[in-house]
């Protein structure tokens, strides 16, 4: 009994000694993007007590994976509302997974929105359009929250740009999102071209777009794709760029028979 009592005293002393180290370790883990998830009571209500306990015990990714399968089943049954709810939980459990944010946004803005627009059970065109836009907004919300949690990942900005371009037709917002994506590490070169194409469609931004397109053109032959050449020539015409400063497009060669 005396030894047990002494061990408890030792345990408390060991606890006091390790506490500062563990606090420092917690900070190091947080700055390395670990232990950043806050599991609150709202989440407990959403996933149930057992799953919440499992998530608390270090099985967050496992719970997220099972919920993702559940969302896939909901997708097969086209239960869009349920899917949105599950996506919300999955992205809360795994906020640093780019895949979950991207797929959630894609399902909402591309799949659910089309289903809402073509909903045969809704006779009102106005309400169908409204529902479609709500799904666009939901998709954008997923991407924006994903970016907040993963500000250094180019892919979510690129997806946001695509959403602004294809669904909202907001070329200024699309250009801004593509430009942010292009500035991030590992971003493929096509994103910069996308930013320039979108900017060229924004009224009043022709000069900026021209300079951006020209810069890309000057990078070399590999960047001189047909869309880039066409956009650049349009900007040259609009801005009335002197002939000697315009790009030289080689005439298409004709094969001799």
């Amino acid at each position, binding site marked *: 009994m*005396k*030894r*047990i009592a*002494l*061990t*408890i005293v*030792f*345990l*408390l002393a*060991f*606890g*006091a000694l*390790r*506490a500062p*180290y*563990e*606090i420092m*370790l*917690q900070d*190091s*883990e947080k700055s*390395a*993007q*670990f*232990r950043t*998830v806050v599991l609150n009571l709202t989440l407990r209500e959403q996933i149930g007590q057992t799953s919440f*306990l499992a998530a*608390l*015990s*270090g*099985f*967050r*990714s*496992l719970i*997220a*994976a099972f919920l*993702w*399968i559940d969302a*896939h089943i909901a997708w097969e049954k086209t239960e869009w509302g349920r899917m949105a709810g599950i996506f919300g939980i999955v992205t809360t459990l*795994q906020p*640093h*997974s*780019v*895949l979950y944010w991207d*797929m959630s946004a894609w399902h909402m803005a591309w799949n659910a929105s089309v289903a809402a627009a073509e909903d045969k059970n809704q006779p009102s065109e106005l309400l169908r359009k409204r529902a479609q836009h709500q799904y666009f907004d939901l998709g954008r919300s997923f991407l924006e929250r994903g970016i907040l949690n993963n500000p250094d990942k180019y892919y979510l900005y690129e997806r946001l740009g695509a959403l602004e371009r294809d669904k909202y037709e907001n070329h200024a917002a699309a250009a801004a999102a593509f430009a942010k994506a292009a500035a991030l590490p590992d971003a*493929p070169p096509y994103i910069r071209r996308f930013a320039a194409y979108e900017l060229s469609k924004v009224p009043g931004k022709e000069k900026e777009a021209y300079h951006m397109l020209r810069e890309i053109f000057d990078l070399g032959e590999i960047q001189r794709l047909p869309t880039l050449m066409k956009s650049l020539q349009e900007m040259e015409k609009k801005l009335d760029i002197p002939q000697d400063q315009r790009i030289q497009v080689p005439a298409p060669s004709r094969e001799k028979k």
Partner: protein
Amino acid sequence: MTINTTSSLPVATHRFFSLSRVWALALNTLIELTRQKVFYFLLIFALLVIGNSAFMAQFSFEEEFQMLKDVSLGAMSIFTSLIAMLATAFLLPKDIEDRTLYTILAKPVPRFEYLLGKLAGMLLLLLSSLLLMSALFITVLAIRENMVISDTLRQMQGMSQNEVTAAILKVKTSALNINLLPGIAIIFIKAALLVAMTLLISTFASSGIFTALVSIAIYFIGHLQATARDYWLGNVSITWITRVFLAIVALVFPDLQAFNLIDGVVVGTAIPLLLFIKVFGLGLLYTIIYYLFAAFIFSGKEL
């Protein structure tokens, strides 16, 4: 005439500590646990990984690989934690019941060595299980990766080399990642901590079931220890009784959240080397300290 009193026969000297004795005890523990068919859980793991892989083939390859990593590493973590607590909880009670403990301790084997042998045996079991599970997981992931790559190559026939290279790179970055290995090492050190902690409890517990239940309870409390510590040391207005209670929780129980890096690793977050050393070092420290406490109690225990 002088008489030589020293014998020419070798005298067996007893050493205070012998690694060979610890090794013999560790191997014996491992063999005993193998006989109890502890490794059968690997069949469940294999079914889970292979079944998961087959089921996930209907998803996109990124989703499939993500799920495979989530489920496999989650299962590794669950299995190693459960084995660490449940198998260790019944080590001492079984040796007492079989009278093996008395046979061993009747020989010149110090009690701390006996416990160290048990600890080492359990660690060997966990290490071999984790290696087998990792090998299976990596094999399945590599097979699926190769299948996806050949599918991609077939589908992209006629496209430019740059596009093909980019697509293959995307498949490779979604699949096997070297960052997974430090994550698996952290699963091992967390399990080692749980073994030492359960061994400590079993030195004063009255039965194996009691040890197992207390260990599982501590496992859950340990994952909330950091929250208790934050409230204890933070500027939160709470009564002094609550503060004392939180202080006890923070000081007595281990911070198991510190070892939950796998949730980040599966989504591609890399563990910096320094952080890995710090976490692994903490796990090692817990294991050593808990073992020393266990040896201290066990050396004075009436058997």
